[in-house]
């Protein structure tokens, strides 16, 4: 019997036998149904595994059965995989190893049952859930829109440890298995069948009948022509090659190389998965299980997995903000200003099933926005093989119009016009007239105060900040800015919309730069100062890439636009004073033809195959040149950012340290494996960071940004950590 000495049990664990139902279907057929009473979607947690093991016990004692079906509550609800909360809390390698081997033992007993085992699953079938179905002889998958199947473990810094690293390669061959494991993609039904992840698709209504007929041998699977298990010559060749050692090594080494290129060695899980999958062939099931258990124990106890899991859990928690009390569905939104941001927001909405009306003063700007929307929609459709009717709908939902006609029906309007207070105020007072009572009016401002914008309007409670990042389609974060008078249900509704648009909302206070731009301010300015002191921009960028940033600070400045960065810097200085004092470098560079990537020239010259440093950089430095060591560069940049993050937390710009770490990772790309700025500080040790900051402050032109924040000093002295929940 499995108990909580082997696997952690959640506090609300139900009594034994209640999570898995074993049902007789007659004719020698039985059905295992995962339906834990304490979860809406089953999770492979302690109680479920305990009861699954009991069901296997019962089946082992039976000799009259011919087949068994493994299924979930419904054809579109099976299980969500391993217990992520448990993974977040497990730290003892021995305990983790015990857990994994226990699971393997149960799975192996199930796989060894002398019955025809057919998995009949659908909806999300990620990770452990898929690994469980891999123990069956056949997998039948629901051909439904919501079906997604795959092994996303490496995205969480772990490997598919419940058999995925050996059962999947055996099923689909090493190359396909590695593709599935390393991308962590969750495949739609048709693609899963094509790749051979499953054996057959069935409609929701037919799933159980077909699975029964297969289990009883009344129906056979027709083998495909193509693919790893196919009948064609190329399929046969694939199978032969897959057994050849050097071929496997070649595939693995290629995969390894591409992983290292992407991760710079910061992420151990994919490498470990490649190794496991490569060497899985020809090993006994117990041996393979042992190796997976070893690898999983190291990874789960490790820091990277903990950090990645915390990001995942943080995002999930943020998505729940859309289900708060008072959150309403928004059917139609208006967007004012068809610039890059406005057009991006409108396009995102129309692509996600929201009716959108985009307004600007000039028809030709609207035309460009619409053209871009259609192009992006078609591009996305091609990639995802979306149906034509869905493309049509995305195109139809994108309305444009000069002026504010047609805004009366909008439930929410997002303003994305020029970043000037008087312009925004004028737009909002027009909007207050044109929109229906109670419609939410949101501003996409990045540098102005929501309160200042709302101050003279009749109903300031409906004004809220909704700060998207550029490029809108790609950046996952949305800062939801609470003005001092913004109504809570307005915040809730806006969060709900953000989630519907596929974004992660983080509520922030109405302070200059909000959260993300506020912490980026000192980081980017410190980079400019390093440049002024003679540091090589390529070296600085390389060091930050090695730290784990998605791009270096100078590449980022060019991307953002030097004009935008300078404007943001100014407003931050106005808001925070000395510690945000900006260097004169940007002003020196800035010219109409030199605003970053959009004009082709910034710190780098763009347009070639790769950006190269501009040729005149030396003439733009004014401080006496001096040398920097790597540590100084990294610490000046990163600690300037982190110290500001601590100040923001202290001032309650966000509610929790978790939210702060999540927002900074999603908003700036801050090295995800480090778990965010606050986790990074904790990892380095707060007292050593405090002394390092003091040292940096001594030689800095802007010592204020390096003065250790009081909250940090306090925690360093008491040995505490930042408040998480």
């Amino acid at each position, binding site marked *: 019997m499995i108990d909580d000495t082997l696997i952690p049990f959640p506090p609300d664990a139900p009594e034994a036998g209640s999570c898995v139902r074993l049902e007789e279907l007659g004719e020698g057929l039985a059905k295992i149904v995962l339906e834990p009473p304490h979860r809406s979607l089953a999770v492979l947690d302690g109680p479920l595994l305990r009861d699954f093991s009991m069901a296997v016990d019962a089946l082992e004692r039976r000799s009259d059965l011919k087949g068994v079906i493994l299924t979930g509550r419904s054809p579109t609800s099976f299980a969500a995989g391993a217990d992520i909360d448990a993974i977040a809390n497990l730290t003892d390698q021995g305990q983790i190893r015990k857990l994994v081997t226990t699971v393997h033992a149960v799975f192996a007993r199930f796989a060894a049952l002398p019955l025809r085992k057919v998995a009949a699953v659908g909806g999300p079938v990620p990770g452990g859930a898929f690994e469980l179905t891999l123990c069956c002889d056949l997998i039948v998958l629901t051909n439904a829109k919501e079906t997604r199947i795959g092994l996303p473990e490496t995205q969480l810094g772990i490997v598919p440890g419940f058999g995925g690293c050996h059962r999947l390669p055996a099923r689909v061959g090493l190359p396909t298995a590695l593709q599935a494991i390393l991308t962590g993609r969750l495949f739609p039904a048709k693609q899963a069948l094509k790749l051979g992840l499953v054996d057959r698709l069935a409609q929701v209504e037919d799933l159980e009948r077909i699975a029964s007929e297969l289990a009883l041998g009344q129906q056979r699977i027709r083998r495909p022509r193509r693919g790893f298990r196919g009948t064609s010559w190329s399929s046969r060749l694939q199978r032969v090659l897959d057994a050849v050692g050097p071929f496997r090594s070649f595939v693995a080494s290629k995969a390894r190389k591409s992983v290292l290129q992407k991760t710079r060695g910061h992420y151990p899980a994919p490498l470990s998965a490649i190794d496991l999958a490569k060497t899985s062939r020809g090993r006994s099931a117990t041996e393979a299980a042992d190796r997976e258990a070893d690898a999983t124990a190291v990874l789960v106890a490790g820091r990277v997995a903990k950090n990645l899991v915390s990001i995942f859990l943080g995002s999930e928690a943020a998505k729940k903000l859309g289900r708060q009390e008072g959150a309403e569905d928004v059917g139609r939104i208006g967007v004012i200003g068809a610039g890059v941001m406005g057009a991006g927001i409108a396009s995102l909405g129309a692509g996600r099933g929201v009716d959108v009306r985009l307004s600007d003063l000039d*028809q030709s700007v609207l*035309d460009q926005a*619409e053209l871009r929307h*259609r192009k992006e929609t078609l591009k996305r459709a091609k990639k995802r093989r979306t149906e034509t009717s869905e493309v049509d*709908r995305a195109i*139809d939902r994108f309305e444009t*119009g000069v002026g504010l006609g047609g805004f*009366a029906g909008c439930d929410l309007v997002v303003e994305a016009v020029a970043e000037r207070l008087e312009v925004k105020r004028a737009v909002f007072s027009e909007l207050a007239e044109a929109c229906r009572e109670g419609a939410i009016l949101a501003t996409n401002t990045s540098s102005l105060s929501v309160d200042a914008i709302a101050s003279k309007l009749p109903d300031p409670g409906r004004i809220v900040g909704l700060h998207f990042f550029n490029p809108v389609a790609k950046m996952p974060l949305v800062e939801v800015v609470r003005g001092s008078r913004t109504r809570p249900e307005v915040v809730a509704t806006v969060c709900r919309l953000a989630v519907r648009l596929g974004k992660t909302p983080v509520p922030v206070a109405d302070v200059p730069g909000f959260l993300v731009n506020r912490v980026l301010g000192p980081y980017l300015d410190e980079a400019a100062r390093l440049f002024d002191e003679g540091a090589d921009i390529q070296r600085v960028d390389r060091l930050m890439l090695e730290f784990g940033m998605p791009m270096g600070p100078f590449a980022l400045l060019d991307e953002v636009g030097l004009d935008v960065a300078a404007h943001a810097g100014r407003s931050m200085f106005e808001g925070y004073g000395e510690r945000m004092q900006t260097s004169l470098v940007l002003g020196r560079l800035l010219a109409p033809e030199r605003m970053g990537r959009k004009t082709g020239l910034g710190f780098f010259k763009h347009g070639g195959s790769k950006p190269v440093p501009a040729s005149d950089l030396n003439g733009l430095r004014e401080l006496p040149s001096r040398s920097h060591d790597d540590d100084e560069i990294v610490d000046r940049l990163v600690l300037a950012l982190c110290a500001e993050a601590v100040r923001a937390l202290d001032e309650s710009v966000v509610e929790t340290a978790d939210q702060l770490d999540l927002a900074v990772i999603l908003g700036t790309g801050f090295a995800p494996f480090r778990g965010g700025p606050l986790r990074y500080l904790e990892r380095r040790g707060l007292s050593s960071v405090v002394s390092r900051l003091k040292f940096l402050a001594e030689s800095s032109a802007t010592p204020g940004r390096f003065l250790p924040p009081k909250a940090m000093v306090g925690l360093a002295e008491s040995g505490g950590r930042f408040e998480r929940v």
Partner: protein
Amino acid sequence: MVPVPRDQEIVLAAGLRTAWAKAGGEFEGEDAAHLGGRVAREVLARTGLDPSRIDEVVAGCVGPPHDQANVGRVIALRAGVPQQVPARTVARNCASGIEAVASAAQSVRAGDAEMVLTVGVEVMSAYPLIFGDAFRHLIGKLHRAKTLGQRIRLLTKFRLGFLAPRIALMEGLTDPTCGLNMGQTAERIGREFGLSREAADCYACESHRRAQVARDRGRFKREILPVLPLPGYGKKPARASLGVDDSIRDGQTVEALSKLRPVFEKPDGRVTVGNACGITDGACALIVTTRGRALAEGLSPLATLRSVRWAGCDPSRMGLGPVYATAKVLQATGLELEDLGAIELNEAFASQVLAVGKAFASRKFAQEHLGLDEALGELDPIRLNPNGGAIALGHPVGATGSRLLLTAAHELAEQDLEHSLVTLCIGGGQGGAVLLERCDG
């Protein structure tokens, strides 16, 4: 006539159209459902009407795309009208747009509906080419063939000539009962009423001039929704939306027109491509409801629909249809021709419009065909198509009726008129006429 309470009068509550674009031009890549849906969606947005409170959608279209037999339904859904609202497509050749409004009005009058969204739409660019019967027959048999031998035997019957397409547009513009093309019917009445080629060219030239003036002073601005065209086959996507009717020829001259060769009756005919309407793409949406409901929704209606009449006539003289239909409208309302401040008479062909004018003024015609003692009256050329007509703008068949109504409705306010008339000839030998009346809030 039973007097109707003012609240129950049927009105055109709002309307909007796309620009009229030459076929094979800007809207070549368009699809009737997208173009119609676009303009319908915009009317709903601008009026602020809740789409779920629309009772029905009616589209007029002569040649719906083959994959959208009930194109009205597709338009409704693409316009964002909820799926529980029913939709249908109606046709009466060139009057399909009016038919949509007329049948919507009937529904409202009968109490079956109160608020109807109507759309007239035609993308003539998309009219298909058709394989001949022989090839169709062969393909049909191929599909049913069971053995390889059968298939091969059938394939030997294939002839290269099977690939010659039939042009749906040309065949659609030919009357199957009299065998005449629409242009030939225009030649016929032109001859019978003794009209010259010069007269036709002069009329066409004036149509362009008026349209040009109207466009330049922004007369069509309030009618037209600029639409960014979907890209045509093999074309790069258009960089800008189309907001003006693109077949108006600036500075058109009679001299230039006189150089064109007749199309249907060579060499002496009077119908050329210059004095006939163009093949065109476009869509136009109109909201039909009661006056009371329109006011309750906060709209200011464009016009009251006073009278709608249809009439049949000789298919080979279909161009005279407006005379028969207008006679009925005048009789029904007790008005005289001179009471009509503006007349939107569809310009299928210049010689057809002129023939209609002659028939209006002819006592003999009135006696022989209309059962009247006296002629209907002279058509005042100033009041006739004051903003030009189909010769300059084009004639997207299913959408034209809707545009005529929209333009005539706006003309009431434009010239401060009491009444305006819309009338057109209909292939197959019919005429339609609608009397619009000023609708004061």
